């Protein structure tokens, strides 16, 4: 049998347009999906060409490069890509905290390779090598499921935060509310895991997490509603565009921005509001019984929640990925990340400067200071809205 030689270029289309694909899963252009689509064009095209070389005219090669398969594989690569970007940005946040905290304490911070960045990798490897122990008398199901759900939810929330108009997972009309809902689920799981660990420190930590959530979720949601009121939408893209059109919301809502900053710090359970883990008194609180990689993942999830808080602040008050007078720059994703790092820097500053707040003080601050402040902020915004400024 004489076989025709088919060039590899017959199988790869470097300029494939994912929007032209009938199975395109989004309404508008999506950059990570586009990258994933083109990567699959190259990867799958090469595989299909190889298979076709060996078995000419087989159906697998054509199946690999058909529209539906391309979309499926592109979606897989798309998920991986979104996760990797989010993961690396979390690692950068982790590195930044270590380095800045070191400098603020007149130390050097981490020094392992790449200005200390590789310390995160070393820590990950170290926790990975540890024995995965679990105490005998824990409630097995909740113990294992809670850590999985906490980590999973944190990753999910962080992946759901859009980095720009072209870098998103799902373009919800109520994106802000959904992110906040998932964000607020973790303290509930912390309460359950604290109970499951059969340990008084963990239980106290879990209780405190629940108490923290109850007292800080309320002003936070009022503030989010305020911003939604000002922008007229719960869609993140609309909020950012509204700020780009008028003014960054940190200027009319300065009280709200400060309140939101502290509420977000409390929600992410960072110092000075980390009474749930409280290293000094509760021995890491609800994380006490989690050993090895579980603990490492929980730590990572903590920082992911921290960077979600920063991203929310950037979206609500710092106009997301837009810049004044420029609007959408050439790389809006970088702008967004840089802004969230700036907010995180202030979180580190607060962490370094202030001592942990007592439990009753936290409740006092939450209900008697932040709550009235957020209502005052709401009143100001209402006045502005009624007065026709916005």
């Amino acid at each position, binding site marked *: 049998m004489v076989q025709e030689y088919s060039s590899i270029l017959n199988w790869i289309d470097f300029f494939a347009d994912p929007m032209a694909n009938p199975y395109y899963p989004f309404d508008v252009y999506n950059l990570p999906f586009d990258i994933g689509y083109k990567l699959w064009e190259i990867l799958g095209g090469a595989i299909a060409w190889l298979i076709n070389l060996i078995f000419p005219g087989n159906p697998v090669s054509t199946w690999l490069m058909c529209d539906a398969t391309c979309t499926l594989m592109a979606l897989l690569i798309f998920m991986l890509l979104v996760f990797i970007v989010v993961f690396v940005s979390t690692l950068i946040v982790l590195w930044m905290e270590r380095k*800045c905290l*070191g*400098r*603020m304490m*007149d*130390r*050097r911070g981490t*020094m392992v390779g790449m200005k200390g960045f590789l310390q995160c990798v070393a820590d990950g490897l170290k926790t990975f090598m540890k024995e995965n122990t679990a105490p005998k008398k824990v409630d097995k199901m909740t113990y294992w499921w809670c850590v999985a759900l906490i980590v999973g939810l944190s990753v999910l929330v962080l992946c759901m935060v859009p980095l720009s108009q072209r870098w998103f997972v799902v373009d919800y009309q109520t994106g802000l509310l959904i992110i906040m809902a998932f964000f607020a689920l973790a303290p509930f799981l912390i309460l359950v895991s604290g109970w499951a660990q059969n340990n008084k420190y963990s239980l106290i930590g879990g209780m405190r997490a629940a108490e923290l959530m109850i007292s800080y979720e309320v002003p936070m949601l009022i503030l989010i509603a305020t911003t939604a009121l000002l922008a007229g939408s719960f869609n993140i893209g609309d909020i950012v565009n509204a700020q780009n059109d008028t003014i960054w919301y940190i200027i009319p809502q300065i009280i709200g921005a400060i309140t939101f900053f502290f509420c977000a710090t409390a929600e992410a359970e960072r110092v000075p509001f980390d009474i749930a883990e409280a290293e000094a008194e509760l021995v890491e609180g609800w994380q006490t019984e989690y050993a090895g990689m579980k603990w490492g993942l929980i730590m990572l999830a903590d920082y992911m929640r921290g960077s979600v808080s920063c991203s929310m602040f950037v979206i609500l008050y710092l106009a997301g990925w837009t810049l004044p007078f420029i609007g959408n720059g050439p790389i809006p994703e970088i702008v967004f990340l840089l802004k969230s790092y700036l907010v995180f820097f202030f979180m580190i*500053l*607060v962490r*370094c*400067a*202030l001592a942990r707040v007592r439990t009753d003080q936290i409740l*006092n601050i939450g209900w*008697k*200071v932040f709550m009235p402040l957020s209502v005052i902020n709401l009143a100001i915004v209402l006045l502005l809205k009624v007065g026709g400024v916005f």
Partner: protein
Amino acid sequence: MAMKYLDKYPKNLAKSLWVLKPCWAVLKLFAKTVTHRSMTILYPYEKEWIPDNYRGRPGLRFDKCVGCGMCVRMCPTACIKLIEVPDDEGKPVMRPQVNLGRCAMCGYCAEYCPLDAMTVTPEYELAEYTRYDLLYGPRRLNYEGTTPGMEVKLEVTLPSDIENGNPERRVSLFDLDRPELTDSKCIGCKKCAKVCPVDAIEMVEKGVNDKGKPILRPVIDNSKCICCSNCVLDCPKDALQIKEVL
């Protein structure tokens, strides 16, 4: 009920702005440490700044030393011993040997050395594999680059004085403290003249005794004497004492 709620309410809400104060302090420190070097140093690669009179291991300037043994007597941990070594011309002389395993780095030897032959040095990395290696002989004690600040003076001579070109002793005690002879106790045994490391003592005939033999008495050359008190310690009849100048 409402009043009870307000009981614990912060009286003056603006007072809670105190949180800005530590934040500002931390921010200032951050700006400083980012532009300057931080407090911690990477020890094996970076060395700490060391002052001129840092008390590291003792050092010895072999040629200046006369072997008076002042350091041996003053050492609080008794780590210094006088041993016999050949000098540059091959003559056997007594020089101190320091056991750094026992040395407390107090610098007393450098302080009390009347000739400033014993100095302190800024060397503090002294780890060795065996204890025997910690014995520093007179030649090994040598330290290149001895500065005036390392000759720790017993009297008040500050490093700032040396910097200002005024290394002289403020109170020259050793120029004034001298051994004094109690003539009635002396038996003229010449021991003081033998032990004097700088040959400041000369036995001089002071008349003749009843049996017709010469009476020898030590005469101390004040310009040579370093007041090491060797003669006082070795006098068999306690005829010599150090006359303190107060």
